[in-house]
């Protein structure tokens, strides 16, 4: 008989949610690294920090848009934040990942935009007086404080999506508690990869890029270990991977997205190639994990198909 999770229904989280999970994770990882450098980096890390904030701000905005348009009733997106029949009471369920996730993405977006404005003001790129005024406040100690809170929120946004999937009754997702940890590691590796690709255009030094490359390698190793634990923890449910998504996980994620860039990093080859593979692998990880489960429909199982 099939496992109990095979009797649940698919939520049809597909073409907006897969990119959201990817962009959200990447943005969270990029902000976390920028925040670390804000606190513990050196003056020549500023281009990477500025790139990280910019990636995070745009990532948070894109995430919010993707999340909203995926809703069956997009104009009711605010029902997740406020009680629609009891305004202005807050709507918040700490035991529901989708509820605290809605708040987390909002707050993360706020902090990411503040940091991005601060770094844009630092470069003298802000023309509008209001934005310049806000940006000029986010400097020094304030910038560090914003980065500390935003960095934690960044990792939260990267990981809660995996927790959200685990807190369901769907096959694969809820059959293991390791998806959140896997998405955190993937968010960190893709965040670093995005910075490796984008920061040179803003004047990043070789020293900063080498640190990013070194961190990316470590994040990929963590990702590989967590992925192995995740697969191991699925037990008999692993037969659900006997599909095109399982092949994608093996070839696209493990080989192209983790092992190949690790090899490139170790060989000290040009960083951009490895970074592009990491970004591809991160996307394919979300795609394979989401669609492998989405494809299993309860009535097929019940009918013995």
């Amino acid at each position, binding site marked *: 008989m099939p496992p109990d999770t095979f009797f649940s229904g698919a939520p049809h989280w597909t073409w907006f949610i897969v990119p959201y999970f990817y962009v959200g994770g990447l943005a969270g990882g990029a902000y976390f690294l920028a925040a670390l450098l804000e606190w513990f980096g050196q003056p020549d890390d500023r281009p990477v920090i500025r790139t990280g904030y910019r990636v995070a701000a745009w990532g948070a905005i894109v995430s919010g848009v993707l999340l909203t348009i995926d809703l069956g009733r997009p104009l009711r997106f605010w029902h*997740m934040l406020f009680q629609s029949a009891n305004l202005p009471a807050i709507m918040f369920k700490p035991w529901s990942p989708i509820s605290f996730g809605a708040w987390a993405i909002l707050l993360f977006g706020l902090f990411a935009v503040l940091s991005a404005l601060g770094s844009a003001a630092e470069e003298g790129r802000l023309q509008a007086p209001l934005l310049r005024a806000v940006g000029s406040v986010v400097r020094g100690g304030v910038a560090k404080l914003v980065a500390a809170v935003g960095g934690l929120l960044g990792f939260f946004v990267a990981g809660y999506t995996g927790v959200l999937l685990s807190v369901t009754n769907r096959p694969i997702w809820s059959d293991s508690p390791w998806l*959140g940890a896997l998405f955190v590691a993937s968010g960190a590796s893709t965040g670093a990869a995005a910075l490796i690709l984008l920061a040179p255009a803003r004047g990043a030094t070789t020293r900063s890029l080498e640190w990013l490359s070194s961190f990316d390698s470590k994040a990929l190793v963590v990702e590989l270990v967590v992925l192995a634990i995740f697969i191991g923890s699925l037990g008999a449910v692993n037969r659900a991977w006997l599909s095109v998504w399982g092949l994608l996980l093996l070839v696209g994620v493990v080989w192209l997205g983790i092992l190949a860039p690790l090899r490139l990093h170790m060989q000290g080859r040009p960083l951009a190639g490895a970074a592009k593979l990491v970004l591809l692998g991160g996307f394919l990880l979300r795609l394979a994990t989401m669609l492998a489960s989405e494809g299993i429909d309860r009535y097929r199982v019940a009918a013995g198909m």
Partner: protein
Amino acid sequence: MAEAMGFFTDTTVCIGCKACEVACKEWNQLPAENGGIRELSGDSYDNTRRLDGIHWRHVRFIEQFKGPYDGRWLMMSDVCKHCVQAGCLEVCPTGAIIRTEFDTVVIQSDVCNGCRACIAACPFGVIDINPVSGTAQKCTLCYDRLKVGLEPACSKACPTDSIQFGTIAELRPRAQKRVDQLKAQGVEAHLYGADPTGPLGGLNSFYLLVDKDEVYGLPHKPQLPSRNLTKSAGFSVLSAGVLGVLALVGLRKRRMDQVGGSGGSN
């Protein structure tokens, strides 16, 4: 609060007439699928196939045939289980899903924003999006009828009393009596979801079955989605902690190398 109300569905007397499906559709004004042009399943006499946003009742046909003269039909009118501990209600981020005074679980369509968290949370695959409203929908146990003292449309229409409506306190002993009666006749029958100490605190829509739960498309041990919350969150924090430490160690090593390098050049 009023008494807890629900359904006891005796699958042994279901004849698969689908009167309950029709009554449900009529009362709740649920739209036809695909503009009324239905596709046949092609491999079963059951063409509804599943519960979803526009089918809040579904008579499941289980065709157990080894040959033309060797087999049996099992039929079960499936519906929302109105779980005492409901996974959908637990995860709903908008507060659209509520527990009523009858201990039933209802989705308020004017509050739901169609995020679909409840669909993935339900262990029975009951909920789905209604394409007309764009919101998640399922059986309300005819909340509007209950409020004015009427019986739900499906049980009212059931010609064999396979679907019995009443208070849970009254339905449970009645169901057990029927199980005892069938067992005395040599039929292997059992109740699914009638035990208040069982999974999900019991189901307010429970069943009498004569085969394994899974044969009827029912999970043997349905669970709440929150069972994974603490572990999953804990492992995520652990992963974030490991990555944070690795990043800091890398930064420290870089600084030490720099100090070492500048020391060597002096």
